[in-house]
């Protein structure tokens, strides 16, 4: 009995280590190796790093990445924290509606937002013209303002969801004690409430920073003259493809390092801050005074509605009548007819790749999650550490690493659908692993042990006892992976060939070529696929918004 138990999970462990080794460690090593090799001579050199760190061209890109990273993070915090505090601490009508819209903003691809904002705030954008007619000047959408605006409105739901769920678990008696001791509401908020949820806020801040510096589509569409590291790496890669992509690789390593520094900072900041809330009763939302209530509602609804604007614009544009690339007055299904006629395989590809990747993620992720939660060894510890990598590895970098690694034998995969599926798989796997670990921590291991002592094998015990208990969590995690997989742009853009083109790639190319009609129609299809997945997540997880982070 004891032996059989070791065998099944040892096998899973071996497979996991193999998968991580081939799909993650090897590509990462290759890109690191490429960064220290001279493009022409093939000698070992630090020249690429010297250039990246000393040339003004790269220094500017680095500085710009920092600015948009910090800007996107601050913007998201500024929108997300008030929304979380107001909706959890006070009575806000339509709270469910607000959180649903916030989640929908979260699952729409950010570069769609970027181009919708051009329509609204570009030189000829309807909102700009409207505001100018009443004398309000808006800064140009091209550049920092546009990038940070898009990031803030795109990423604030992470802050909102993480902070709100943390606010829901702290013991209200601490806040009440502060009140009883005479602290005014503002002081109570800043000295008691926010410090208590600091771990959640800092985790959200970290997440938004990492996502902001990794984002490729937004700066390349509304960036104007602002170059960031992600776009620089992509451009370098394109112009270096003939040789070893040394400079692009060095830029990528710098980008990863930047994310790692922030991860370390966040971990340092929350050390010893783990306030395990002894949850006795949930905080009850209070009623606000009439004026305060009006202000609170205006704040909440403005944030959520403004962040939904890009999706509405995209949906509207997809139904506009078109003639060639020119929009005509009136509505029609032209753009949809066009994509169904001309690029049906792109829609099929996106669906197929995402489904296969998610099936693999769910199977492998659950297995690895089980190992990490129930079998703590040195090796599983290392495995856990390895999962930080995809989290801090921007899509552009992962795409580059895959080209460098899988363009040559023994595993020549470039140009195939397999490489895109594997990329999607490895990018989203860590999230499913984490969620299954946290589900498993809530399920007592003794249930399984009881089954084993009654004569079940370890595999049978897992499948019959633990798996059914995990199922709702797994399904929600799988759907979330599906949403991110079907919206993936930056790695696919590097790895695609004609027949493996996906919807986000096609949308991005259309936007670059100025074909907004077809881009909008494809984007609307993506939005609806993601919306459907959101609906299903709500169904299986009983409206638990934290399933989204």
């Amino acid at each position, binding site marked *: 009995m004891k032996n059989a138990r070791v065998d099944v999970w040892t096998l899973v462990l071996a497979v996991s280590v193999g998968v991580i080794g081939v799909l993650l460690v090897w590509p990462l090593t290759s890109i690191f190796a490429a960064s220290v090799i001279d493009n022409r001579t093939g000698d070992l050199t630090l020249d690429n790093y010297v250039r990246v760190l000393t040339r003004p061209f790269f220094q500017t890109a680095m500085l710009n990445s920092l600015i948009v990273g910090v800007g996107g993070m601050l913007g998201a915090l500024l929108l997300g924290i008030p929304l979380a505090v107001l909706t959890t601490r006070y009575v806000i009508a339509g709270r469910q509606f607000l959180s649903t819209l916030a989640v929908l903003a979260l699952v729409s691809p950010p570069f769609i937002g970027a181009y919708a904002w051009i329509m609204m705030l570009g*030189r000829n954008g309807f909102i700009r013209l409207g505001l100018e007619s009443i004398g309000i000047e808006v800064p140009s959408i091209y550049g920092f303002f546009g990038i940070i605006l898009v990031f803030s409105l795109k990423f604030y739901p992470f802050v909102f969801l993480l902070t709100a769920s943390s606010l829901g678990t702290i013991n209200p008696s601490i806040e009440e004690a502060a009140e009883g001791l005479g602290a005014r509401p503002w002081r109570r908020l800043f000295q008691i409430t926010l410090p208590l949820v600091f771990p959640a806020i800092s985790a959200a801040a970290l997440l938004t920073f990492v996502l902001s510096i990794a984002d490729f589509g937004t700066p390349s569409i509304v960036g104007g003259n602002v170059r960031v590291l992600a776009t620089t790496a992509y451009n370098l890669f394109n112009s270096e493809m003939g040789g070893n992509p040394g400079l692009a690789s060095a830029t990528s390593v710098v980008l990863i390092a930047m994310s790692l520094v922030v991860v370390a900072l966040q971990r340092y900041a929350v050390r010893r801050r783990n306030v395990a809330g002894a949850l006795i009763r949930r905080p009850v939302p209070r009623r606000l005074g009439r004026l305060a209530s009006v202000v609170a509602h205006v704040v909440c609804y403005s944030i959520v509605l403004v962040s939904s604007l890009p999706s509405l614009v995209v949906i509207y544009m997809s139904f506009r009548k078109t*003639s060639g*690339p020119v929009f005509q007055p009136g509505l029609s299904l032209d753009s949809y007819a066009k994509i169904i006629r001309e690029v049906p395989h792109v829609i099929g590809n996106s669906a197929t790749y995402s489904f296969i990747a998610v099936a693999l993620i769910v199977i492998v992720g659950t297995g690895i999650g089980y190992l990490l939660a129930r079998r703590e060894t040195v090796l599983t510890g290392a495995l856990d550490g390895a999962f930080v990598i995809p989290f801090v590895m921007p899509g552009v970098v992962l795409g580059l690493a895959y080209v460098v690694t899988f363009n040559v034998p023994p595993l020549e995969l470039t140009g195939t659908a397999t490489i895109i599926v594997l990329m999607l798989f490895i990018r989203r796997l860590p999230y499913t692993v984490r969620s299954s670990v946290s589900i498993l921590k809530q399920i007592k291991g003794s249930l399984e042990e009881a089954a084993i002592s009654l004569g079940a094998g370890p*595999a049978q015990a897992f499948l019959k006892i633990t798996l059914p208990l995990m199922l709702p969590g797994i399904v929600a995690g799988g759907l979330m992976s599906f949403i991110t997989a079907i919206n993936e742009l930056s790695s696919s853009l590097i790895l695609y060939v*004609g027949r493996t083109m996906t919807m986000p790639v096609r949308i991005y190319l259309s936007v670059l070529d100025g074909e907004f009609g077809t881009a909008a129609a494809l984007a609307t299809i993506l939005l609806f696929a993601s919306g459907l997945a959101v609906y299903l997540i709500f169904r299986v997880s009983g409206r638990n918004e934290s399933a989204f982070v």
Partner: protein
Amino acid sequence: MSTLTRVSAILAGAAMGLALAVPAEAQQRVSVYTAHTANIVERLLPEFEKATGIKADVVKAGSGDIINRVRAEQASPKADVIWSIGAELLEANANLLEPYQPKDAAMIADAFKTTGAWLPYTGILNVFVINTRKLKPEEYPKTWMDLAQPRFRGQISAADADKSGSAYMQLNTFLTIYGDNAAGWDRFKTVFRNMNISASSGAVPRFVNDGEASVGITLEDNAYLFLKNGGPVAIVYPEDGTSVIADGMALVRRAPNPAAGKAFIDWALSAPTQELVVQELGRRPIRKDAKPPGALKPLEQIKLVNYDIKNAANKRKEYIDKWNDLLQSR
């Protein structure tokens, strides 16, 4: 054990899905790398597939990116045909290409004859595209140097010469007129200062059409697409000169499907395809027997400079380095 069976069924299903996702090579296929915008590709490819029964796989990117990709794949080429990219790039990379004598070689107009490593596909012409709501006719820029006027600051949309074949051609045209020397570059800088650089040449007429810029430097056919469909745009042919050259295509050396690649080139040069490209897309034909698009100004009435493709190919690295210096120092 039923759950275990179900799980293995899912696993098997996933594995099968993976296998299915790698397509079977039953039908004859051709792999095409092109700088054509996606809408042109999607308009023309069904015609090709109908005419030849061959299925085409297309990778779309800027001219520069395409050549880089073909060079990177030199050891085991993935592309059969390079379709519609800047002529000087093909000229400069003849070692990546396989010379081919097409069926209709005799029908190619003399003006577009090439050295043989590659073939002309259509004639392309650089123009200014103007937003007619933002500028009155008397305010239109008439020459390249007009673009340097302070009133056009940030109002001129252009593509990145490093990525876009047409943008490189525009830079070269300017230097052909004003001199490939310090004075010529100084003049170019005054125009460059007013430019907004977009990531793709296809975006330039779109920006002008949408009023995001009042003037764009672009290919005639890209502008024509917006004009034909009722967009608020006008086309201006610079009075100090512009260039018309062949936009090229070529068979890739050691192409995986050379027969299909040749069939593609023959199709592209055939009379029906050339007619289609002229009528639908506003490109200039390279066949002796095809008429230019009706709505566009005849070539004889446009001031053309003597555009030297060989020189453009030889100087590419030098010019692009200078261009990138300009771009990186702004």
